[in-house]
């Protein structure tokens, strides 16, 4: 039977390869629980897998979906894909930045909201698009709609 985590039968991979293949998965698990990757947890993972912390940090710091800093309660993500870009994503981002008082990629000091940009969420038909907490997708966002959203998130 194939191994559940690696998807490969016993005996094909070395222990070392198996452990390394689990890093990304484990990091997602940690992030699911803590909302970001706390240093403590990375150290624990390093001990558990017996892989140098530097290697784990090397993977964690490379990928955009891993966060080494705490994130806000709400995550507002502005799509800056090509279609969104030409349809006014920069203006939308400006409105959100001004309302929250932070720049893209930052979290406010009360951990209320994190503002991010994403390469493309894949609904270019509705450009420009903003997502809220990875669940709610708001399409055809105008400056006014962005302002409404910003106020809603801020007062949540």
């Amino acid at each position, binding site marked *: 039977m*194939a191994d559940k985590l*690696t*998807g*490969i*039968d016993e005996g*094909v*991979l070395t222990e070392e*390869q198996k452990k*390394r*293949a*689990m*890093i*990304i*998965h484990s*990091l*997602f698990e940690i992030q699911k629980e803590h909302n970001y990757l706390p240093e403590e947890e990375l150290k624990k993972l390093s001990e558990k897998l017996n892989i140098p912390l530097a290697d784990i940090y*090397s*993977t964690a710091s*490379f*990928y*955009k*979906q*891993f966060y080494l800093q705490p994130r806000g309660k709400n995550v507002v993500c502005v799509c*800056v*894909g*090509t*279609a*969104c*870009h*030409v*349809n006014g994503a920069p203006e939308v981002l400006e409105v959100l930045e001004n309302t929250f008082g932070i720049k893209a990629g930052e979290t406010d000091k009360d951990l209320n909201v994190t503002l991010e940009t*994403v*390469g*493309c*969420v*894949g*609904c*270019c*038909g*509705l*450009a420009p*698009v903003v997502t809220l907490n*990875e669940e709610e*997708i*708001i*399409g055809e966002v105008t400056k006014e709609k962005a302002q409404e959203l910003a106020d809603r998130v801020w007062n949540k």
Partner: protein
Amino acid sequence: MTRLTSVNDLIELKKSLVGERVDPDGTKRQSLWVCCGTACRAGGSVELADKLQEEAKNNNIPVDVIKTGCLGMCQKGPLIKTMPDGYLYQKVKTKHTAKIIDYTAKSGFAVRELFYRIDDLDYYYKRDIFSGPKEKIEDLPFYQKQLRLILEGNERVAPENIHYYIAQGGYEALAKILSEKWEPEKVIDEITKSGLRGRGGAGFPTGIKWKATRQAKGEVKVIVANGDEGDPGAFMDRSIMEGNPHCLLEGMLIAGYAVGANYGFIYVRHEYPLALKNISIAIQQVKELGLIGKNILGSGFDFDISIREGAGAFVCGEETALLVSIEGKRGFPSPKPPFPAESGVWAFPTCINNIETLANVPYIVKHGAEKFSSIGTENSKGTKVFALAGKIKNTGLIEVPMGITLREIIYDIGGGIKDGKRLKAVQVGGPSGGCIPADLIDVEVDFDSLSSVGAIMGSGGIIVLDEDDCMVSIAKYFLEFIKEESCGKCPPCRIGSYQMLEILTRITEGKGEMEDIDRLENLAKSMQVSALCGLGKTAPNPVLSTMRYFRDEYEEHIKHKYCRAKSCRINTYKIDNDECFLCGLCKKVCPADAVIDAGDQYIIDQEKCIKCKACYDACPIDVIKSLGSGEETIDKSTINLKGELRDGA
């Protein structure tokens, strides 16, 4: 679900499903196919489907409500297709559910107000008929020029229910190979004959890739499906993974059989949660049915498929980077050779194909290479799925035969440019592609023709740009993306993209020098030859293609501090006081308080002006002029899109 142990079991299962449990044509009862692609979801289609179900239950009306993958016309979502009548309802809201159940589900009547109507008077004028609303999918101009081999599945399959796929001939291609005991070489031959080329961008012939992997030495071989669709403006693979996951799984099984692999990985972006969910469900179902695992359908063929989640790195779309990412490392590309076919993930021979490529495989095996290769052009066979977006009336997901022209895509399928503006260029192929100017849109869409005009097929994003888009800014936009996403391993890409972006930023801020154009060209050309991976090598394409076709725009930015699209904040705004009728709107909207009320005229204080063009947009009679500064001033009326300034400037 009982495990299938032979091809016969599969046929029996199919028989037991057709018409009774699965009724996609609505022969026994009405079925409502609610599009639950990402765009329609954003419009509330999931709630819509639930409400329809509830409404039907409350009224005791037998009806199948099926949540499908993307139906394509994202602009008009949420969409519902009804069977057996084949009506297409667009922009459906929850307030319509009662009527849909009462009219369509109960009595088979149409809810006419939900039909698609062409809202473009020109369309009627040119065709001199006042045709009524478009009732069915095939009546819509958006669908008429499409050829939906792969996307058709999205209309007829419930992604979360394997029975729909099987009842309509799913896994039959695999069964055909297994029951007729095809030699793996025969499968490879069939794919080679079909002329299928990789849909991920480069267009490498799939048959050759498979053959190389087959011939590579090694006990263990691996199939990888590349679903790391990182190009901004592309969502084809997503729609296949979300809407028809079994088609992908079947393609992988056949690939595995052909190259002699026993393991398959699907690498899916973390940004695609629904694709991850639907593929997981699909894998669970095929596992239960014994379509993956050991001794598939009693043939002795073993194949396992599992998911690998990407963690957000554009470079992982590059094959060598993706493979080390599966191993858990930083997604750094490595030089080729060795090619993945010789030494891929964990140094096993690996065949890595794009999602759409693999989704084509069952069709080819089922219908034969000849039928497939009868579609398309000489060197590009079959169809291609494109994500159509930008300044176009009908955005969405389309599938067209290779060899169709861009003009047909933009005007016939896309319905033309939004808001009566003029087409300026078409960006094809994302950050590795290029901008094709409006006068070249009669180019055929296939691998070779597109590269001859400086673009590439890429993964299949088509972004339409109009006169309000500044081509320098577009180039800058892509460079920003590349700079952000460059993995940093090789200096040409890491430093080159940074330098190019700096120069482009300077130009869009009106601080450019004429030498900058040569500098850009030099940087671009050295990056093309010296970058390590395909992404780095193609990264300068957006800059080179815009410089090739829109050089005059670069020169205007530099020489005259003038952006004809008025999107860079470098133009000078002046009020033509002879024409002005003193409405004062410009003063009202100016955020910088730069408009001075001089009693009998308004004057813009150039010191204070932040060039936001709020006054220009607000002026009801267009007497505020947007000008360049420098040696000569340019009025917008002297500019046309073909750039006649080229000689004069």
